[in-house]
């Protein structure tokens, strides 16, 4: 009981929980779910992008896209290590992912159909991730907060590069401008849905807020994101697919139609357009790589690292 009091005092004082500190089971579980979902999203999120590496229309765009995917693999590594501070292994986390017991962000289950999707995906979903993660940088768990500082910096770079892809399209041929319009129309709602369920449908959210794992409610972050996107969409000359979207001077915010949360729940549950494809791809890569990982382990066992010096 003394431990719980100390823990709650630390949270209340906006202090950081560290791996060696005592923490309530519920806190550990909520945190692990959050970090695991974040890590899984980084590695699953590579798939819709790698779909376009081979076909990127200029070498510079190809390089930027490969660098982005590399960053995501790096974030994945970093976040799996962060999760490991909670006493689990990366192997276990991957098993949970492959078995479908842990989740990743739902937008990853939509397909990238044209080159413009690469831009829209980065502009909107990385943009949403930045809004989310900037807030999460003040999370109460120290290792996660520190990981997020680095992740955030790179995500915000990706977000800008996505905008840049779209900007080039917006100044391009009619086919390119149509590609832009179409992609933004398809990615707008998957991005809005990234902030999760609204207050009245989300029970976990309150607890995460109380423990300061999360620092802002879903709806507040979603509004912040919409307010950021609208002027950017104007620069792109692209219409966001929401006839209700307009400035509300009283609220000082844009009004908008919320995402279809039933669709979000269906996609999270596994019935998005690409869930099966993404999971099959991920499992196949893992299974086909098994002999390589076994070889590395066998080699390491035969050849213990030379002592330093």
């Amino acid at each position, binding site marked *: 009981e003394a431990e719980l009091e100390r823990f709650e005092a630390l949270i209340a004082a906006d202090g950081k929980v560290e791996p060696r500190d005592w923490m309530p089971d519920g806190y550990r579980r909520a945190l692990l779910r959050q970090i695991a979902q974040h890590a899984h999203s980084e590695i699953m999120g590579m798939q819709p992008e790698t779909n376009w590496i*081979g076909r990127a*229309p*200029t070498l510079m765009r190809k390089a930027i896209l490969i660098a982005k*995917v590399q960053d995501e693999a790096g974030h*994945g590594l970093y976040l*799996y290590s962060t999760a490991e501070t909670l006493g689990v292994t990366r192997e276990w986390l991957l098993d949970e992912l492959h078995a479908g017991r842990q989740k990743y962000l739902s937008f990853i289950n939509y397909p990238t159909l044209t080159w413009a999707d690469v831009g829209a995906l980065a502009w909107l979903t990385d943009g949403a991730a930045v809004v989310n993660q900037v807030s999460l940088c003040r999370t109460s768990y120290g290792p996660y907060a520190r990981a997020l500082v680095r992740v955030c910096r790179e995500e915000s770079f990706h977000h800008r590069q996505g905008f840049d892809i779209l900007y080039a399209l917006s100044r391009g041929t009619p086919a390119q401008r149509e590609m832009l319009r179409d992609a933004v129309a398809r990615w707008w709602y998957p991005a809005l849905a990234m902030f999760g369920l609204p207050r009245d449908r989300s029970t976990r959210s309150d607890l995460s807020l109380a423990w300061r794992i999360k620092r802002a409610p879903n709806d507040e972050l979603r509004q912040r994101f919409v307010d950021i996107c609208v002027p950017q969409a104007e620069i792109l000359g692209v219409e966001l697919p929401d006839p209700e979207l307009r400035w509300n001077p009283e609220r000082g915010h844009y009004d908008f139609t919320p995402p279809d949360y039933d669709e979000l729940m269906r996609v999270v549950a596994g019935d998005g357009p690409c869930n099966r494809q993404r999971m099959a791809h991920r499992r196949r890569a893992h299974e086909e790589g098994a002999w390589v990982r076994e*070889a590395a382990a066998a080699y390491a066992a035969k*050849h213990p690292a030379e002592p330093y010096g």
Partner: protein
Amino acid sequence: EPGLPGYVLGLGDDALVAAQRVAEWCARAPQLEEDVALANIALDLLGQARALLSYAGELEGLGRDEDALAYTRDERDFRNVQLVELPDRDFAVTVAKMLFFGVYQHLLYTALSSSADARLAGIAAKAAKETAYHTDHAVTWTLRLGDGTAESHRRMQAAVDEVWPFTHELFEPFPPVPGTVDPAGLRGAWLEPVERVLREATLRRPEDGWAPTGGRRGTHTEAFGHLLAELQYVHRAHPGARW
């Protein structure tokens, strides 16, 4: 196409095609560390390709930039060696290609970094550092797979046997051009570390014999056309568009 433009174009095409193949591993590598490492190598190769193709375009003087060269040439106009275009059906094949090609590139770039051609020397000096890392990486994996499990040994040996014949083309003589290094002189220096690594990895060094060739003259393997279709499709579908 002898002369400096053809020389630089050949090296640029090598790097471009190698980058395209290595990048195919993104999001399907055997482990996450390898996703990072292979993406990094693909990026280095692509950077080399861009610098070399830009320079080749300038030397050629027909107003073609890196993208015009990468995206609008037909198969028969590409000057890369066949080794880099071989399909990476198996991670062991990727490792074998990376080892053989990495050591070759490293030797060539190191020599070229003191080229009288300052532009080429600059590109080569940067690339020599990058390829040192690629080589280390390939050596590590050659050892792990060659001296890992029975299965990995079998696969790695098969990959070495499959790729070896294509290494001969790397050392085909190039007509003397000021500022270039003739790769024909590098095979001895290449064999030494390669044979050493194979030995340490408990792998058999294949016999020299069949030596397929033609890439530098635009004769490629059938796999190459499919690679180009992927590489160039979007660019070709929107002629004249800017991206």
